[in-house]
């Protein structure tokens, strides 16, 4: 490819949206629109004929690289767009407290962990692992949190009862009150 074509290729790759011909012209003040259009064709031809997995497509009055349709499914399946996530130790701790003590309020979680857990709880809610299940008694009627069905799903459990009963848990993470019949 010509130097101008390579510059366009680099810019189209790096841009966060389709680029118009005008914008592409601004990359090289010396080059006229005709030259830029010719270089653009060069890039498109290279990707069209060279047997590539991506192609240069005219879209929304501009130009953009897109992966070819035939690969879309495989890429979707691999779920690359977001990095597979593990929970941070802080999130796991908070989740453990909520799982074993639910329904439980933020203050109580803070007290057990010894640090402010508001942001961590919000993240867990965002991820659908935890949700507000009710409001507590007392000052301000605090929101009480519990785990969601998705929590069970991620852990591969059918029921909350399947969570292991550690001996120590009966001491430290014992539910605050005897369970009420439902």
């Amino acid at each position, binding site marked *: 490819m010509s130097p101008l074509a390579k510059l366009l290729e680099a810019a189209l790759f790096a841009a966060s949206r389709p680029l118009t011909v005008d914008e592409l012209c601004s990359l090289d003040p010396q080059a006229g629109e005709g030259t830029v259009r010719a270089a653009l064709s060069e890039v498109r031809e290279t990707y069209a004929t060279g047997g590539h997995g991506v192609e240069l497509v005219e879209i929304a009055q501009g130009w953009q690289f897109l992966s070819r349709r035939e690969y879309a499914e495989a890429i979707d399946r691999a*779920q690359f767009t977001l990095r*597979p996530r593990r929970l941070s130790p802080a999130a796991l701790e908070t989740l453990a407290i909520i799982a074993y003590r639910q329904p439980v309020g933020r203050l109580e979680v803070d007290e057990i962990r010894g640090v402010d857990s508001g942001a961590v709880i919000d993240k867990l809610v965002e991820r659908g692992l935890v949700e507000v299940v009710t409001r507590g008694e007392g000052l301000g009627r605090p929101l009480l949190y519990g785990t969601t069905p998705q929590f069970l799903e991620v852990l591969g459990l059918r029921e909350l009862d399947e969570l292991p009963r550690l001996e120590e848990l009966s001491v430290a993470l014992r539910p605050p009150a005897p369970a009420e019949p439902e």
Partner: protein
Amino acid sequence: MTTVPPPVAPERAGFVVELDQFSGPLDLLLHLIREDEVDITDLPIAKIADQFLAVIDELGLNQAADYLEMAARLLRIKAQLLLPRRAGDDEWEDPRAELVRRLLEYQQIRELVDWMQQAAARRAEQFGRGFAPEPAAAPPAPLVIELNELLAAAERVIALIPEPMLHRVVPRPLDVEGATAKIEALLAGREQLAWRDVVGARATVVDVLSAFIALLELAKRGALKVHQDGAFGPIVIRREPAREAA
């Protein structure tokens, strides 16, 4: 001659977290040492201490704890060096040694920073793919949690809980009565207390507030006197002579 970058705006000087000029007292010290072109390992402590004090004064850092602490350290070393010592005393340890070690270590960090800055600048010359697929179309990131991870987290939480074990957790109000009783008990045994004796080393904010209010209350009642030699000095608590008998 010490040249210092333009001073910070005075209104910022109260609680200095991060300065534009220096990333901390060690950075400032290193700046002074480089300017004087002296050897770190043979630090002219008296001169550097004076320059350091002049700069924190000029920059209005008189309330920045980290800088003040370093100033105090420098003055102490300066004083120690002035003390006479016997000729041929093998036991003598250079009071500068610890500071020199920290400065060398810090200098090493600064060199790493230079290296990292260059690496980051080089990386910034290349652009990754700017276009990110529509979030709506993207499937959510798969989440991985192992059951044993969750259990390990539960165990960590358990380890965090101090004895005695936790029962029902409610927001704790100030416990002024408890603090009052504690101070009275301590004073029954001793004439004089330090603040630390009252609150202990692991006091929570609630403990500190409770103890402080209790102290003020007891002082008002005339049961004790609270004395502090100067700003930020240690607080001394003295029992008042048995007026309660009156």
